[in-house]
């Protein structure tokens, strides 16, 4: 269990970093170092990302190209193919809708604040994934079982009500808008990873409920 919890924190930290501009050598190296079983649902996405990273080009040029593409896909200027904000998908294309407000309130309930402050809307993909990493750490560090369950339940609720209701649409938009395997792979990898964790949490918390 401890191992699984630490792995979850690592997974969400990685996902957060992958959606935090700019992509860095550290993040790219993390992707390179990751291995999964061939039949893993994560394998396809990871392989696409890794294939891009293994291209025989200058490392700096590769990072540059990835960041240019990431700019086009998610950063701007103007209309981008895959806006990385929940409100866009849930509230008719406008940002800072109820999804952002609700996320902000939840973060503060957990006495957590994004290091970027509130300048980036609280429903940005990287911030929501970061909050899941924050809750995962909370679960890891919890000494009392009920506190751990509380953090895991909060993670599940957050995934259900704040992430999974828009993430597939976002990943779909990302995948369709790019021919770069790093980003098509990122879209698949992210969606599968979050889906797996959602499923894992659901099963875990049902078992915990039965146990108690």
């Amino acid at each position, binding site marked *: 269990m401890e191992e699984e919890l630490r792995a979850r924190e690592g*997974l969400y930290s990685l996902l957060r970093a992958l959606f935090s501009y700019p992509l860095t050598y550290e993040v790219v190296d993390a992707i390179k170092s990751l291995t999964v079983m061939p039949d893993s649902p994560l394998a396809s996405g990871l392989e696409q990302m890794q294939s891009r990273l293994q291209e025989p080009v200058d490392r700096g040029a590769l990072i540059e190209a990835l960041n240019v593409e990431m700019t086009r896909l998610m950063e701007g200027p*103007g209309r981008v193919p895959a806006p990385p904000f929940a409100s866009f998908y849930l509230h008719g*294309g406008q940002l800072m809708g109820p999804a952002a407000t609700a996320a902000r309130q939840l973060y503060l309930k957990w006495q957590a604040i994004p290091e970027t402050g509130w300048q980036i809307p609280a429903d940005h993909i990287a911030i929501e994934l970061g909050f899941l990493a924050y809750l995962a750490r909370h679960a890891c560090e919890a000494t009392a079982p009920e506190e751990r369950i509380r953090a895991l339940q909060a993670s599940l609720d957050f995934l259900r009500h704040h992430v999974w209701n828009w993430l597939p649409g976002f990943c779909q938009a990302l995948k369709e808008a790019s021919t770069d395997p790093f980003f098509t792979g990122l879209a698949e990898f992210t969606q599968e990873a979050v889906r797996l964790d959602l499923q894992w949490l659901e099963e875990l918390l049902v078992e915990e409920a039965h146990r108690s």
Partner: protein
Amino acid sequence: MIATRKVSRRDFLKIAGASAGGLAAMAALGSGFRTLSAHEAQQQQEAGSRVVYTACVMCPAECGLEVHVENGVVSRIYGNIHVPYNSGTVCAKGISGLQLVYSVNRIKYPMIRVGERGEGRFKRVTWEEALDYIATKLIEIKQKYGPESVIMDCGDVTDRDPYYYLFRAFGTPHTVEHGSICDTPRRHGPKLMFGGKRIEPDIMRPVLVRQPDGSLKNDYSYRTRLIIYVGWNPFTATRINYESRGTVEARLAGARIIVIDPAFSNTATKADRWIPIRPGTDADLFAAMLRYILENHRDDDPFRRYIDWSFKEYSQGWEEFEAAFRSWWDKKDPLNGLPYFSLEWAADRTGIDAATIAELAHTFGITKPAALVWGMNGIGHHYNGYVASILGTALNVITGNMEVPGGAIDTELVKSSKGGKTSGGDFLKREVTRIVNGREVKGKIEELHMDGYGDWPAAWDDVVGDYPRRFIEGVTLRYGPFRGHHYPIKAYFIRTGNPVITGSNTQKWIEALTAKDESGNYKVELVVYIDTVFLETGLYADVILPEASSLERMSLSDIYPVHPVLYLRDFVIRPLYESKTPYEICWALARKLYEKGDPDIQPKDFWEKYPTEEDFWNEALKVAPGRPNTGEPLPYPNLPKGYKLLGTPDSLEAGRVQIDDEKKEIRGEPLTVQWLREHHGVAIWPMSWKRFHGGGVLQTDSKKVEFVWDYTVEKDGKIERKGRYSKYNKLIEEAGETPPGIARLGWQKYPATFYWFETRWNPYTNPDYAKYREEYPFQVISGRVHHAMSGTQMVDWLGRLPTEDLWAPLNDERIVEEVIIGENGPTPTGRRVRIPRGTWSIGVIQMNRADGERLGLKTGDLVELETPQGFKTRGKVYLVETIRPGVLRVPLGGGGRFSPGLGKTYVFHDITPNHNALVDPENLSPIMGQPAYGDVIVKIRKIG
């Protein structure tokens, strides 16, 4: 779809990663969150809700607002009841501000171009990288070509001061604002004759007025008996909120409203009479009105006593003006053979019958108080708008309507001063040296100005419409100490503006921004686009900087009130994403320039002098209200009359002042940001009238209304040249060279008093163009839609609202693919969006129904418009009875929009008309170089 596969809980680790330890190690990448104490979290919650008084910028009217914030999100926008300018009202544009602040399309981060200009390919960078790039380039340009090779174009919102301050400190005289591509001919008369700018009716209510018992009270009464709006549509145009409310209220109080406009505008719907004039003949109408008044005035007949001779007490030069005007009466127009300015002559040209013109002149002459008001889409957009503006000003003056209760007021002269040292004007006085034709020459920075000492010496608002030519050819100064100095334009900063769509001919701008030298480098080496929204000009930028939206920054507003009123634009929320306020952008760039060794940027002028944003704006407030204690009733009867007032309203009221008899100043406690915050965001000083008397507020050399603009006076035994044109004429005489603009009119220099010249591209008034009348039978004019210039058309609420037959829900149902900037430019995303029929307004071509039926057209038909020069645009026709036959009207900036940052408006760019695609790029009006947007003729062809 992304494939999914079910997995059991026990398999999670095995599937997620071969090594749990490997994944766990990635926790080092961090969550991006930090933990707050319970108290801090509570504070954050509470800080998320508040009410802030601020000023709108969804359009240049900049109304006072009361904005509510909940959970850190702007939730409601109301008008600020304490700001008399809009008196608690707010329009659809204002409340749509939410949709701009939170638009997915707004610029969020700094960007640097990675493709060619126009492709729209950028890379997000840090502010450090962006500023380093800009500063390095600026210093290179300065060292190689001089700082005068840099232009800072500040757009159309009033909080431009930090940009002016920085770039003037940097050493360029080219700090520009949008006004020069808006309506400079319209302002010319008031500028020449008053030193002002903008005549508006006295209908801003309430106004704070001193009572006979010494108290101050709000006056809500409307005294106006007549308003004539000529080519001015305040109900739709941006700028003057109170004119919309005030016109209705004044009419309810008994005023007569007459609208003279080729199209039945929203303002016309509230008028007693609409007179559809032929475009470009406003000067003809005014000239005929003036001639009628002069010929028919009788001092002894109360029914024909048009002229109030008391105007001579505060004016000079009327005799010369009148003589010059009358000198035309015996001449005959070569086109119609009729005497100039006669009723018959005007009737032939304006298309208004002679009896109506006579009635109009009589009505204006006999009805007092009255105001004759003209606007930007009419007089401001014609080649000879200057003549109309001068005549209109004269008509208001001689009928005794200026500065009387209910009459006409030049708002530029009576609004509060603001800015002071923050405008950076002192930097322009610095002496610099240049080598001109091998000779070392010294002069002031301002004397390097490409317009004032180049082709357009009378262009006190700069000539943005002529920039494309200068971008390609460079600048050669003709006047002043640097005469003969040639320099290129190498850097162009455009902030909250979109000249590719609004700054004269679109294609000409694109050519200029993409022109390359023989080495394949862009001629303009650096283009920086600073804005909240991403418009067409941004596609041609090298660097994009995100400016904070109007709800995220601080500055001051005071849009043409009839007496000093100043209100604060305050931080409602902190700037979102990585956007910065103008102050932050300029101070950060200043630091970067300083670090790189720019000798003109010194800490003592920037962060040491104004360490916080509030310090900067407090400096700008020091000069408020800056107007004399003058007029009736005297604003402060207990303070010396005629002295300049400085300080807060309450300190002046209480007499907490210092009186400087030498400077003739009354200094109360300085107005500050904090004082404004404590007073609902607004400072209001008392209203008075008759402020022209005894010098008052006039800004002319003589402190009188001037009907002559180049004259001499004797002072201490010396003869001095005076008048607004004398400065330019002296330059011309010294150089022995006539500016090209007026040389085209056959003039040697600027006339000393009344002048007349014809507009261009008008086959009905100018003999040179009569040959086009048959083949190009339509005149094209523009009208306003309810968007802020060209900048807010991505705002969904505004996109749905029709505007007076110019912006109409003519869309068929469309399933459209969203378009984004792809790897090779604008590219469909594949995501389909349904736009139901009749739900999205698009720019259309308004056309008289009879014209349309004669040509076999019906509403919704797609047509192409083509000028004699071959300029084309296309759009759907909208047939109505409410426009003069032979006239087409299209929205300025309302069609042909090709920035994907515009959302649904972009979708219809191929079937909506771009007015500026038709504008003759060489047709810059002769005095100040404003593009003559309203002088366009076309033929029409159905294409779908």
